[in-house]
């Protein structure tokens, strides 16, 4: 009889545990130690408790802590060292060509890294060879063929402006690529383009090819 009780107890336990663990896959399920599994500290992307924190710096009343997830003003992120003077407005685009690329030349490894970043972030539309025929180009449309003469002639600074603030249907890539990465990707794009002389020979040359003729080599 005693044995029978044992067996029943084990059976009941088995059924109970099975039922508990077979929860719907839409729910995270039960865990043994919730205070260890779910962090007490604030995790990335966690919502701030509005009872304890405020995002309004002028909110002096009460004892709420001011925190808005922004870096303190005046700090620089790694890769953002190169200063960029132009703001996002209609006039800036026209003068953006005057900003020089702070990166003179890339080593073989740096160029490979720039190419890797280009393939991840740009080639999806502009194509791995820059021909404007990436996998998404037929869905978005009006993708720039970077090997055409007008892009060969385009100054590095103008390209940087477009990558930073977006142009037409292209969004800003400032949140995905640092300034250093953007400048080096432009260097990489130059290696995809035909040499400036060859490209301009075939066409009635636009006036300002000189600035890029040097960098295209």
């Amino acid at each position, binding site marked *: 009889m005693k044995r029978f009780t044992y*067996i029943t107890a*084990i*059976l009941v*336990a*088995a059924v109970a*545990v*099975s039922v*508990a*663990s*077979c929860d719907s*896959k*839409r*729910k*995270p*399920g*039960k*865990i*043994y*130690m919730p205070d*260890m*599994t*779910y*962090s*007490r*500290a604030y995790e*990335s*992307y966690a*919502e701030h408790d509005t009872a304890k924190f405020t995002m309004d710096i002028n909110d002096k009343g009460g004892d709420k802590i001011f925190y808005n997830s922004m870096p303190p003003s005046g700090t620089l992120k790694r890769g953002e060292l190169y200063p960029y003077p132009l703001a996002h407005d209609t006039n800036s685009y026209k003068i953006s060509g005057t900003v020089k690329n702070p990166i003179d030349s890339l080593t073989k490894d740096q160029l490979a890294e720039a190419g890797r970043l280009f*393939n*991840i*972030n740009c080639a*999806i*539309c502009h194509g791995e060879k820059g*021909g*404007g*025929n990436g*996998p*998404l180009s*037929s*869905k*978005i*449309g*009006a*993708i*720039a*063929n970077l090997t*055409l*003469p*007008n892009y060969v002639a385009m100054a590095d600074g103008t390209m940087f402006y477009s990558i930073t603030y977006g142009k*037409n*249907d*292209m*969004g*800003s*890539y400032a*949140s*995905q690529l640092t300034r250093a990465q953007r400048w080096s990707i432009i260097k990489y794009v130059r290696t995809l383009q035909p040499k400036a002389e060859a490209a301009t020979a*075939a*066409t*009635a040359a636009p006036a300002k090819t000189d600035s890029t003729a040097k960098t295209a080599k």
Partner: protein
Amino acid sequence: MSRYRKIINKLFASLLFVVLLSANNNVFAQDGEALFKANCANCHKPDVDFTGPALKGWKEREPEEGWVYKWIASPAGMIGSGDAYAVKLAAKWKPTVMTGFSQLKKAEIDAILKYVDDYTPPAPAAGGAVAGSTEGGSDNSLLFGILTLVLAVVGIILLQVNSNLRKLSDEKEGIHRGEPVPFYRNKTYLMIGVLFFAVLTGYFLTNAAIGLGRMKNYQPVQPIYYSHKVHAGVNQISCLYCHGGAQDSKQASIPSVNVCMNCHMAIKEYKGDPIVREDGSSVNGTAEIQKLYSYAGWNPTTKSYNPDNNHDGIPDGARPIEWVKIHNLPDHVYFNHSQHIKVGQQQCQTCHGNIQDMGEVYQFAELSMGWCINCHRETKVNFFNEADSSGNKFYSIYEKFHKDIKNHKMDSVTVEHIGGTECQKCHY
């Protein structure tokens, strides 16, 4: 199987297309196709309107003979000079203005226009292969189960036959035994039954107890039906395009809404294969994109973000998307994405499964400690090779291993060798 059929169908269709093209076209038109693809295809399609108008039938629309060459050379100039048809075109397709292609020669333009006129849309891939609901290889466990049952029944029958025969032979030899106990009172049978039951119960109990506390297969409903299959699979977007943090930091990072809008400023509708949830209900991709617009504060009709009237720095109505976290490591485990992606050169799929095939993401790995440790024991590091100085130079400092490799005491270095199974590597 249906996947192969799809590929074969596509192959067949493209073959047909190639044959059709080569049948009545000369080298001239082939050039036209190449030129069209290089210069025009970004904004124009031969037969349907795209960013710019469909090009087929240009001849009928042309206001005068030779107009098209002038237009292609300098559209902005034509509009500026007040050409009536050019102004009309610009008004119809604004704000986009066609780029000038002054570098194209007349012969090249002729080739492109000839290609456009001769263009026939490729025949749609014929029939079959609609929804890829593959049944997968039939589950063998049912077959084995039935086999086991049959064998067990045969075994019991044989035992019965055996005992009957023994009874008969005993009677013949005149040995008298008592009436045999029925099998449900036979202690051997009972014992076997209890043992079998205990093992079965123990198996399920252990598995269930381990499963409790792990979240494998967890697949929550997300605020937007975001299909990794459509984005990473069909459209081949790199994982790192959206989850760029995986190569730079501890977190893989959830993309902010502006990353979505990089493409969805232009892609307003879902036109791909129908999306079906696992329960069979269909998903309206275009409606899901509309949800994204509402989160982003984007107005698709005016193609601009909502004004920021309350001066909080974001468009009015914009708010973050509250994605539900699936993969959760306990607080006492340290895991760094960049260490695995950048240094270890691991694929995302190693831990997240075939994410490019998932409509809705579920937790693929059990994320248990045994699972981590097992991988650390088996995975070889990109060890520095002194002979040809290939591999990760950091590992040049492991003098003992270099000596051992030279003396053929070991042939490869795993993560465990360099301390990947030390407790404090992940728990501190």
